């Protein structure tokens, strides 16, 4: 009871302080008046009675003070006055306030921005019902390789029927990356949109309700459906349909196929793939029609599968349950028509918690982002040291005021509090500036994650995690830069009594020995050490990037333009596609400025999915099929010449290798080493796994090319590759093809217009996109570029801050030692000697910091090993260059005050003394 009463009383005091003051006055007036009346009644004169009554009552101010204290809210009023005091102080020194707030704003902003991206990508649960019960169906090998597993429909349908988990939901992007997007146009210009195929129960299982109409349901995914239906995103509804009220029931054309819109999804729902988004979702059953794929596409399409676990079910128990089912399925209870299912049943099911969704982007950027976040936090520390120096210097400038306050009885904690409040005000203002900056920065950071191949859609709400982070950061900063100077300066103030202030220097700078540690030195050493760590990290990332950029790709990317041709909507029959593609290549090759042109299924670096062959390994026929999976491309004659990759042996594919002619192949060096092992690979017959690829006919090797990059310049280049003639690819060619065009000279992008004209002249129904190969190589290095530029920026910032810090501390020491320096000069010390005197001290600090930083860097750099390429984490040359840069900057920073010290006029100084 008493505790509650106290709290209530306290709150009353807090909110009704003024009213309580008024009530106290009224109460006391009543008291004094009553006393006066009593005294008058006992025979005093009124004037006398008044005087007496007031004297008996005592000093109302004193009672009021005690009364407030009794109610436990006096500190609030003290706080109020301290706050006003601090604000007044800051107004008196606007330059200090501006420098501090902008420095803090920058570092807090950078940290918050990075955190909000980390939050959006790694921490934020999916915006669906009960995300904690969601889990991915993965496999043991996929978990081991940190990749995503996909499953054919018969398997996940079977799991759905078994009902061991609450729901099974499957989805598949129409293609990973941007190469394949749906065209929503009804003719004319293409209107690209991101699409998703989903199982019928997808939205219900996630607990997502439609904003308009309904979501898809199980019956929509029934193959017997004749009318195609789909749901669209809230964004597409606003963008394309201007939020039309009658949206439900309207028709949208997906790849020229009419689809009835049955609903609009709620705003902010991006699916379960964090970092991606979609505009339209169709049931798998719509796949064959929209993709113009054979009917068994539905069974074969590889889908990502998510499970909603039953309440209380853990991923581990679900794994056990499902592995039991897997054994039964493997024993033959699957429908007989699922030829491809078998190999999915040998890899044990593994259920992985997925409350935060799945994301390729996450896998790619998790480590880089956390690394940069740590780097930014270290920069914050460096900045805090600088601000602490400033606050300390300011505190000393106010030591007279502090001494006076101490002398008239202010307790030390009160002085500390005044300074801390000032720091908190600065940090608070910095945090507000930082949050504004962060909102802008994080968005531009997201922009840098996207490349020409991948669009990134990431929701970055200012949610509680980001706010807690910003507030915690602000609190920590205040403590870091406010606490130490506050304690230090008030100690000085308390130590000096008013009488002695005139003759004693604050902060007692009396020692002349350079190696004596003084307050403030620790800060400089810390700054130098941290900057060294950051510069070394930046140097490592920059070197990695440089190595990757200059690494030979195995082909020449500068003069190649990749044209993706989409024939899905042309009137050409599928059987006539080969002839069409050949005519297109011929037409492009004949254009002026074109040196070579050739077509292929895929082009290097932008590869997101491709065919693979399962090759027989003569020396180890029993090795698992994953080890014998060889990426396979299909090319037309002249393709290797377009990429300027020379033949090591044999010949290129040519017109003789037509459909029906003896099957041939070109392989790379790695293929020869892995699968051929004969002295002369030309003429060697490649055979394919009879069980898994029964339809693949053996092929004769006619040529060998060098190894080259397939996906990323950073990849291991010893992977075998197989090239087959496009003409011998398959009965019907796919409706998309890539034409690689090599320009005779100059930028290949300039050819785009004439190529477009030539292609349209042959077949008006085509649509195409142009991507210079060099831009794609750039895109493949986006992660490394981001790391190099961010760490470089933060490294420079840290070095700048450390330089400013060293400059400030040295200049401060010089100002304190003015008398001493003056006397030395009067006694005959030369300018050089003075410069040496000042510099030696600074250099001693820097060297200490450099040693600590070198050790720290050597220890910490092991952590970023995985992000480096072509440079070891403890590369001595890199570390040495970082040390050199830092020492140069430090010397410049310290020599400015040193030179100023050498220009001190001894007579002025001696006169001042």
């Amino acid at each position, binding site marked *: 009871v008493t505790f509650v009463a106290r709290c209530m009383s306290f709150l009353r005091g807090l909110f009704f302080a003024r009213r309580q003051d008024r009530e106290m006055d009224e109460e006391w007036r009543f008291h004094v*008046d009553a006393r006066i009346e009593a005294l008058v009644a006992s025979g005093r004169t009124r004037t006398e009675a008044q005087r007496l009554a007031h004297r008996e009552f005592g000093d109302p101010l004193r009672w009021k003070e005690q009364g407030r204290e009794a109610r436990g809210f006096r500190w609030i009023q003290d706080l109020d006055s301290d706050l006003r005091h601090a604000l007044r102080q800051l107004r008196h020194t606007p330059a200090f306030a501006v420098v501090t707030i902008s420095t803090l704003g920058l570092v807090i902003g950078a940290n918050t921005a990075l955190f909000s991206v980390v939050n959006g990508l790694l921490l934020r649960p999916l915006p669906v019902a009960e995300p904690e019960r969601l889990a991915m169906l993965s496999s043991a090998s996929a978990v081991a390789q940190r990749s995503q597993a996909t499953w054919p429909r018969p398997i996940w349908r079977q799991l759905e029927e078994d009902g061991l988990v609450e729901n099974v939901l499957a989805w598949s992007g129409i293609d990973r990356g941007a190469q394949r997007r749906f065209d929503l146009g009804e003719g004319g210009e293409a209107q690209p949109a991101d699409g998703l195929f989903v199982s019928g129960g997808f939205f219900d299982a996630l607990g997502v309700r439609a904003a308009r109409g309904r979501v898809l349901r199980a019956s929509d995914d029934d193959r017997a459906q004749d009318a195609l239906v789909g749901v669209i995103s809230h964004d597409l509804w606003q963008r394309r349909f201007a939020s039309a009220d009658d949206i439900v029931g309207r028709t949208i054309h997906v790849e020229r196929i009419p689809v009835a819109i049955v609903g609009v999804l709620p705003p902010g729902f991006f699916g379960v793939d964090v970092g991606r988004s979609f505009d339209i979702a169709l049931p798998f059953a719509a796949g064959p029609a929209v993709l113009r794929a054979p009917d068994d596409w539905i069974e074969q399409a590889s889908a990502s599968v998510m499970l909603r676990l039953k309440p209380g079910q853990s991923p581990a128990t679900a794994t056990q349950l499902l592995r039991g089912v897997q054994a039964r399925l493997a024993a033959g209870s699957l429908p007989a028509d699922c030829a491809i299912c078998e190999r999915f049943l040998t890899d044990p099911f593994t259920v992985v918690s997925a409350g935060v969704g799945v994301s390729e982007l996450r896998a790619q950027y998790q480590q880089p982002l956390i690394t940069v976040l740590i780097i930014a936090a270290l920069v914050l520390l460096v900045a805090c040291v600088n601000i602490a120096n400033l606050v300390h210097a300011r505190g000393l400038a106010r030591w007279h005021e502090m001494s006076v306050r101490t002398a008239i009885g202010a307790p030390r904690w009160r002085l500390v509090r005044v300074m801390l409040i000032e720091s908190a005000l600065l940090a608070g203002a910095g945090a507000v500036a930082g949050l504004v900056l962060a909102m802008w920065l994080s968005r531009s950071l997201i922009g840098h994650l996207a490349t020409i191949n991948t669009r990134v859609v990431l929701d970055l709400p200012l949610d509680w995690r980001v706010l807690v982070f910003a507030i915690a950061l602000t609190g920590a900063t205040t403590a870091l830069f406010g606490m130490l100077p506050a304690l230090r300066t008030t100690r000085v103030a308390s130590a000096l009594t008013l009488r002695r202030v005139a003759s004693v220097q604050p902060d007692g700078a009396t020692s002349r020995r350079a190696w004596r540690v003084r307050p403030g030195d620790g800060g400089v050493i810390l700054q130098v050490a941290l900057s060294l760590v950051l510069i070394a990290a930046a140097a490592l990332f920059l070197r990695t990037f440089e190595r990757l950029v200059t690494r030979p790709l195995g082909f020449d990317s500068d003069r190649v333009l990749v044209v993706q041709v989409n024939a899905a909507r042309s009137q050409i029959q599928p059987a006539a596609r080969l002839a069409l593609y050949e005519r297109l290549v011929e037409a492009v090759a004949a254009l002026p400025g074109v040196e070579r042109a050739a077509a292929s299924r895929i082009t290097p670096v932008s590869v997101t999915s491709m065919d693979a062959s399962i090759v027989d390994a003569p020396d180890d026929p029993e090795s698992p099929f994953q080890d014998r999976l060889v990426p396979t491309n299909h090319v037309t004659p002249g393709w290797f010449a377009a990429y300027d990759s020379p033949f090591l042996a044999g010949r290129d594919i040519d017109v003789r290798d037509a459909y029906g002619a003896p099957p041939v192949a070109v392989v790379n060096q790695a293929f020869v080493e892995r699968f051929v092992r004969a002295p002369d690979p030309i003429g060697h017959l490649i055979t394919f796994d009879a069980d898994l690829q029964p339809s693949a006919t053996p092929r004769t090797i006619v040529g060998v090319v060098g190894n080259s990059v397939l996906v990323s310049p950073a990849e291991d280049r010893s992977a075998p590759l197989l090239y087959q003639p496009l003409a011998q690819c398959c009965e019907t060619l796919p409706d998309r093809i890539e034409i690689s065009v090599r320009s005779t000279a100059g930028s290949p992008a300039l050819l785009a217009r004439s190529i477009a004209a030539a292609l349209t002249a042959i077949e008006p129904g085509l649509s195409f996109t142009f991507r210079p190969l060099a831009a794609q190589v750039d895109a493949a290095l986006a992660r490394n570029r981001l790391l190099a530029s961010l760490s470089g920026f933060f490294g420079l910032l840290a070095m700048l801050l450390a330089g400013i810090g060293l400059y400030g501390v040295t200049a401060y020491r010089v100002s304190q030692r003015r008398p001493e320096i003056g006397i030395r000069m009067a006694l005959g010390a030369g300018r050089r000697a003075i410069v040496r005197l000042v510099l030696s001290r600074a250099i001693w600090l820097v060297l200490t910091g450099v040693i600590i930083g070198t050790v720290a860097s050597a220890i910490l750099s092991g952590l970023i090993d995985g992000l480096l390429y072509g440079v070891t984490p403890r590369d001595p040359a890199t570390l040495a260059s970082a040390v050199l840069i830092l020492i140069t900057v430090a010397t410049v920073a310290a020599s400015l005050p040193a030179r100023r010290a050498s220009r001190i006029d001894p007579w002025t100084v001696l006169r001042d003394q």
Partner: protein
Amino acid sequence: VGTTTELLQGTLDLLILKAISLGPLHGYGVLLRIQQISRDTLQIQQGSLYPALYRLEHQGIIGSEWGVSDNHRRAKFYRLTAAGRRRLRDEADYWKRLSDAIGLVLAAAPEDV
């Protein structure tokens, strides 16, 4: 006016509790009541009554409400709460034991030792 006695530290609270245990009083009334029941032997600095009242109120031992005094002016009246009654009983017991003990000690004749 007879001889007066300075208040012992901490006894003011007890006096206030006792005074208002006989019925709700305003601050001036508390003063009068204490003077009356102690027959003017206890001297209190009048203003110091109020911080003590506020402290007791903050502790939830007494409650207060605004009312009308005998001379028809607005005044704040204090009364005991349940917790206050308990406290008064405890403190009174304590004082009684203490004063009995001290009385015994002081009354002791040399032959009793």
